[in-house]
């Protein structure tokens, strides 16, 4: 066993054999040429590379066992965290893996192989220093083991065993070395990959859990959003869509500087902070200023860009502010425009930062689109060109879901994103010329009805006081219909609104019977209806009640 070696220097070191152990020096493969080819093929079959780590190790161990005609073969991997060897794969001594055997470095058969990076041959287990009881229980007589080394790093131990006493020779060692050389890089790669994958997966789960599960829904607008991670890493992009008082919608988007789990976690904090401050209803600029103060108060350096908009669906009016974020766009049937606002400094950039607020109107049929730079960043292309391209790609008559889908399809390069990206789109719905609604007899629908009516009345040209009075009267008529609904099944009622020559006609009908007003309070609804409308007719029959109301808004 004294052949000259050409292995790495650490393999050339020799150690004084301990009781019952023989330290072997790696050897030139002492195989007959044809045997060598056969062995190399069995152990280096490219098909093995296609397998996952478990299948790969399984297949490799089977081949080692067949080639060396041994009874057992096992791989233990080095766990740097505990400085132990952990049984990872085995044939003939599967118990070792099942029992999760862990062996300290430096002691026993495998422990010494790993610590001293030497091959060790034990001719007679009964007289050797063996820590792992399974080897003895199995009745193994002779053992041969070698370290697994990748780029100078010891990553584990490969050993074979025989149930009858056997002299492992240079040929056996050579085969084992081929197998080790084959196994080690694959294991290392798989191990690195799984560590990376684990981190990536954790980050992805974190990122997903920090984004809203579903978008708030308010009358008059349609919303859609997407988040896509970069091809190799998560980042700190976020969006948020939430309902504010009076049926308004808050829409936020942001981008934390940096990547990885840290950026995703910070993103979660900023999203929460913005959402919480937004509940105070101080408007976009003040809200972003508060988030900025929050970022300034963080112990660690943090910076982010963000844009926050408050949308009034009744009128299409939008208040928007930007802290260093890319400009929003508004797109419609025939084109679109970039919302050119002077962006204020990013969140966390300067002490006492001030944020400017801007106003715009998103007309029915138009869509406000907020996005992060991941969507439009192209090497060598100015951002302004990319933004123009985004406008070109998504404009036209399309649903908001379709718009977002198209933006992702057209703007995301085939190889995946270099940076993560978020997009959120809010469409001011087209307003129908007539309203024909079937509604649940549930008081909760009243607020929705008023929002629909305000939008429709504005569209018909009603002024503010007309809108207020008509909305009040129709809401009262609907309240009546809801209160009359007393069937056990989920009841419905209908509302229609039509317009012609400045005359608006509303019909509310239900299948319930008109109830005589109870007490002096209950007739108040009808009083309001009669006062707010020019003409009111209530017809009650066995089949239901119908209120027809008319109001002239223009001569």
């Amino acid at each position: 066993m004294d052949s000259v070696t050409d292995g790495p220097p650490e393999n050339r070191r020799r150690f004084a054999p301990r009781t019952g152990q023989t330290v072997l020096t790696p050897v030139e493969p002492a195989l007959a040429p044809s045997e060598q080819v056969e062995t190399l093929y069995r152990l280096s079959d490219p098909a093995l590379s296609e397998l996952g780590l478990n299948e790969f190790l399984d297949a490799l161990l089977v081949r080692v066992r067949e080639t060396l005609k041994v009874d057992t073969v096992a791989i233990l991997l080095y766990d740097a965290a505990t400085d132990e060897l952990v049984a990872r794969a085995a044939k003939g001594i599967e118990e070792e893996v099942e029992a999760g055997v862990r062996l300290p470095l430096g002691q026993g058969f495998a422990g010494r192989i790993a610590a001293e990076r030497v091959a060790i041959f034990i001719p007679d287990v009964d007289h050797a220093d063996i820590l792992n009881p399974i080897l003895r229980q199995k009745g193994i007589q002779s053992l041969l083991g070698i370290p697994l080394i990748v780029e100078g790093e010891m990553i584990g131990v490969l050993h074979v065993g025989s149930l009858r006493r056997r002299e492992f020779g240079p040929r056996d060692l050579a085969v084992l070395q081929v197998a080790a050389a084959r196994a080690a890089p694959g294991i290392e790669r798989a191990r690195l990959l799984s560590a990376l994958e684990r981190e990536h997966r954790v980050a992805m789960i974190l990122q997903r859990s920090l984004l809203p599960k579903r978008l708030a829904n308010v009358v008059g607008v349609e919303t859609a959003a997407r988040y896509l991670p970069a091809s190799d890493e998560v980042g700190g992009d976020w969006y948020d869509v939430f309902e504010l008082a009076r049926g308004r919608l808050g829409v936020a988007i942001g981008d934390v500087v940096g990547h990885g789990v840290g950026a995703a976690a910070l993103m979660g904090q900023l999203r929460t902070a913005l959402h919480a401050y937004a509940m105070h209803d101080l408007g976009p600029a003040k809200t972003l200023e508060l988030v900025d103060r929050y970022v300034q108060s963080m112990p660690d350096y943090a910076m982010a860009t963000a844009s926050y908009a408050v949308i009034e669906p009744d009128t299409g009016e939008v208040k928007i502010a930007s802290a260093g974020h890319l400009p929003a766009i508004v797109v419609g049937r025939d084109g679109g425009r970039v919302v050119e606002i002077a962006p204020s400094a990013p969140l966390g950039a300067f002490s006492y930062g001030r944020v400017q607020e801007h106003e715009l109107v998103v007309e029915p049929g138009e869509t406000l689109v907020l996005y992060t730079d991941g969507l439009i960043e192209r090497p060598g292309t100015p951002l302004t060109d990319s933004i123009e391209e985004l406008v070109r790609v998504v404009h036209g008559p399309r649903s908001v879901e379709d718009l977002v889908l198209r933006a992702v399809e057209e703007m995301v390069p085939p190889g995946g994103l270099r940076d993560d990206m978020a997009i959120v789109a809010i469409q001011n719905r087209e307003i129908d010329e007539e309203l024909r609604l079937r509604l649940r007899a549930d008081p909760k629908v009243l607020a929705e009805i008023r929002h629909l009516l305000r939008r429709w009345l504005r569209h018909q040209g009603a002024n503010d006081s007309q809108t207020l009075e008509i909305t009040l009267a129709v809401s009262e008529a609907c309240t009546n219909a809801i209160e009359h609904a007393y069937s056990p099944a989920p009841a419905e009622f209908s509302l229609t609104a039509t317009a012609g020559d400045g005359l608006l006609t509303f019909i509310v009908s239900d299948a319930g019977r008109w109830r005589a007003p109870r007490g002096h309070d209950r007739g108040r609804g009808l009083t309001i209806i009669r006062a707010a409308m020019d003409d009111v007719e209530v017809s009650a029959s066995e089949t239901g009640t119908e209120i027809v109301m008319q109001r002239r808004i223009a001569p």
Partner: protein
Amino acid sequence: MNLADVRFSDHDRVVVARVTGEVDLSNAESIESAITEATPNQALALILDVSALDYLDSAGIHLIYKLRERLRTRGQTLRLVIPAASPANDALRLAGVSQVVDTAQSLEAAMREFAEPDATRAQVPGQGSV
């Protein structure tokens, strides 16, 4: 998101309830009980500030009546803050009841009505103001 929000503040023995948002059949009852709960027996008066309310209809007017009756049985006064130009006032006007309840044009005006007795009571030991 709640259709309406109610915020309370205590000014010695006067409770101010400021209702914002919209009041209709869906929330009138829960708003009424929230206000009743927040008004302790020892309070002299409740100021119901609806000047920033966006919508009020017969369900809300019914609430005001019920609240007034409940307070009256406790010997407490209800004062409404309703500016002339406000959605709440339009509803009262259309319902023909704008003269029925005692109103003030502003919260300051309503507070002044109760200011005098409050000031004297604040001097009595054990009845310190907030």
